């Protein structure tokens, strides 16, 4: 479904992604783990077209997308839940969710129906539908960010560090949510620093080490692999 080949990305003089190749097949949860500054977020931003690649290719559903603008990529069916949530702080929960459906061309009624669906998934969002998103807790914002991405009905979800800065209990809830979305047919590329949690819910994993793929394999195998710790901690 998503195929990245020999990707190179630079910020000014600094190359942050070196020759990365990876693949996500339909129906999978693939996780990309790695320590701070390994280039995980950059990789996702490049897939979404916010950042331009300086080399290599990204293909989605058989079409090259690395030259496309981000709004085209959204239309192609990639939904990105960014690191740090990035909800629209001065808009209500309801409006944030409406923004999620920005590119959809179907009827208001259909969108309305999906909104109700999000509220079923996250009852807490329903309670707060008129509250400004910026005033909510980190965990609630994370749910909103996920709900907002679902509103676009993407074929592939990109999750960027959904556990970052969120209370452990909520993190567990969010991971359960991601798993459930996958079971209901969504394809997911999950970027995480919390390696153990991410490996537990994913099918396959890539480990990014300073901009290169250091290790890849079945998540269940990697979970007990000492090399993962080596890459993270250097010992």
């Amino acid at each position: 479904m998503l195929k990245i080949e020999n990707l190179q990305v630079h910020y000014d003089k600094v190359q942050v992604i070196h020759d990365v190749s990876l693949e996500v097949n339909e129906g999978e949860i693939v996780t990309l783990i790695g320590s701070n500054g390994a280039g995980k977020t950059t990789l996702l931003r490049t897939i979404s077209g916010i950042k331009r690649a300086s080399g290599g290719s990204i293909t989605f559903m058989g079409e090259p997308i690395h030259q496309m603008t981000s709004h085209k990529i959204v239309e192609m069916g990639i939904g990105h839940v960014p690191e740090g949530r990035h909800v629209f702080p001065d808009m209500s929960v309801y409006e944030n969710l409406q923004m999620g459906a920005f590119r959809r061309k179907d009827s208001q009624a259909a969108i309305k129906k999906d909104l109700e669906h999000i509220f079923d998934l996250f009852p807490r969002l329903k309670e707060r539908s008129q509250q400004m998103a910026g005033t909510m807790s980190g965990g609630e914002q994370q749910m909103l960010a996920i709900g907002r991405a679902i509103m676009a009905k993407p074929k592939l979800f990109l999750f960027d560090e959904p556990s970052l800065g969120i209370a452990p209990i909520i993190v567990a809830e969010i991971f359960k949510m991601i798993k459930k979305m996958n079971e209901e047919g969504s394809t997911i590329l999950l970027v995480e620093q919390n390696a153990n949690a991410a490996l537990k819910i994913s099918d396959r994993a890539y480990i990014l080490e300073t901009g290169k793929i250091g290790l890849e394999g079945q998540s269940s195998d990697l979970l007990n692999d000492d090399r993962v710790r080596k890459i993270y901690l250097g010992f």
Partner: protein
Amino acid sequence: MLEVKGISRFFKGLVALDDVTFTVKQGDILGIIGPNGAGKSTLFNCITCFFPPSKGEVYFEGKKITGLNPFQITELGLTRTFQHTQVFPKLSVYENITTGQYVMKRKDPSRTKRQLEQKAHEIMEFVGVSEYKDTTAENLSLGYQTRLAIGIALATEPKLFLLDEPAAGMNPEETKQLVHLLREIRTKLGVTIILIEHDMKAVMGLCDKIVVLEYGKKIAEGTPQEIQENPRVIEAYLGSEALA
């Protein structure tokens, strides 16, 4: 040489640093590590008086420095580099180093111009940028810019030197050379070093002591050996399995 006593820092109700205390011995290399958003840079900014802590105090060689201005602590012998290598971009490498010597007139007025020039050349030699002496700093590669930034800081002749992620964006070979350079700064110049760094191999190989932060709190402190065996640290990095 440096005592950090109960430093806290709040931003609009958020706690970026929560009661962090540690000390640094003369001649040590101390590493500060921790996951994203743990408050490492905030800690640096509080120590170097870039902004004041909301609570707590910092003592340098027994003297309280909290509340001073950065240019004053430079005179006392404490300086730093910034994340993403900051130099003076439009100046030549040599001019960058001599700008670093600005404080020398106040620190040691007896030094002649000749001696300072001599010293600037020694520093360029030491950090390995001599051959690019006349090159504009912005045209250097990232690795050399970092070396230059270190050179500028050394030109202030610090006793304590704080580095914020010097190896960011470097390839393994450059990182190795950087580690070597930092070791030399300690052994040959006798400068005490505190660094924030993500590259664990570099940190573990280089530091005498490590402080680990998570969510603004100090969760561990000890030798690299102790840190590697600390389950709390491993959990902070790899996450607990219990969550999923």
